[in-house]
């Protein structure tokens, strides 16, 4: 196909996670529909968005896959997208003024909640 991945509606090289080698046995098909599951997801999502908002402007430590660890300042990401926008990302190659960390690469993040 002479069309590059840019014109393929099924793929999005920037966003798509790498294909899993094995099917996840913990994830039965079609389980996402139950009401209790949805309520749990909504509560978790809300907590996640609140934590993102609290991280804005704070020094944040990101724990990445394969034990990677980087520090940054929480950015202005609205939380809607599947990525973390950060400022002053410290990497072994230097400090990046602004950067985007893909959601799927981040295992956890932590920061000191600012005192009011």
């Amino acid at each position: 196909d002479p069309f590059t991945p840019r014109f393929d509606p099924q793929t999005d090289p920037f966003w798509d996670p790498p294909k899993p080698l094995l099917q996840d046995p913990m994830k039965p098909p079609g389980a996402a529909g139950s009401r209790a599951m949805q309520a749990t997801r909504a509560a978790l999502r809300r907590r996640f968005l609140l934590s993102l908002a609290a991280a804005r402007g704070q020094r944040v430590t990101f724990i990445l896959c394969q034990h990677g660890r980087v520090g940054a300042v929480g950015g202005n990401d609205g939380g809607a997208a599947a990525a973390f926008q950060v400022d002053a990302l410290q990497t072994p190659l230097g400090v990046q003024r602004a950067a985007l960390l893909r959601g799927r690469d981040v295992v956890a993040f932590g920061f000191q909640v600012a005192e009011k």
Partner: protein
Amino acid sequence: QKPILLQGHERSITQIKYNREGDLLFTVAKDPIVNVWYSVNGERLGTYNGHTGAVWCVDADWDTRHVLTGSADNSCRLWDCETGKQLALVKTSSAVRTCGFDFGGNIIMFSTDKQMGYQCFVSFFDLRDPSQIENNEPYMKIPCSDSKITSAVWGPLGEFIIAGHESGELNQFSAKSGEQLSNIKEHTKQINDIQTSRDMTMFITASKDNTAKLFDCTTLEHLKTFRTERPVNSAALSPIFDHVVLGGGQEAMDVTTTSTRIGKFEARFFHLAFEEEFGRVKGHFGPINSVAFHPDGKSYSSGGEDGYVRIHYFDPQYFEFEFEA
């Protein structure tokens, strides 16, 4: 001045477009969300919900009453701009790649991909005759048996359309009879984007062959070439200056394998007459897929693979810039 970041898509941006007055910016992406924003402050006005697949193209009519979108869900949809209501759905046999209103806002045209045994077509519907959309019977359908159409725009006065093909060819097709009026092949690889000048005397093409080219709308005479070292995904002409902005970049998957190209996601500004680059604006985290000048020329926007749309207002220096000959 710091750019305004619009974050309303979770997939790569496919196209962004201002309305005629420039107060609104429409953005579409590989997700099914169609967004419209206030360009002055980046506030989201609303969304047009209905598509079920990647949306490839968007256009607004002259008085911003209607919005037109084309999608990989095999449909072209017409929306009421203000209420967000879907007014019409035209089902197609393959993905809708490019679409647009004519000058008067009465005729819509869109091209469909060559897919699964279906040919590439350009279809024309007259909105003043509701039966055409109701019965899915365009008043004209131009087949493209050779190289499929990858971008198309209306010519001045709605007399013809200008189509760019995956081969790099450009064709003029009459909007009345469908006949091929003119043909030229200056690009060597597919044409990713075509945008006309504000007065519609010229248009600029963005191509995978690493160049953008300027042409005369009526004669298709090739006027200028702007060269870069990577595919150009989109190009736009300033409405007030002799400036051109190009957006492009390597595919994201290429970036991981060729580390020397990391970070090269900039919008590039060229002087129209001298064909020379005079500025670059960094900021996107991935290749830029669509660029557009605000109709007043005082700002421009870019949409990238990273899902962000950035609105840049030019510094005072931009307006004082004098190109040294």
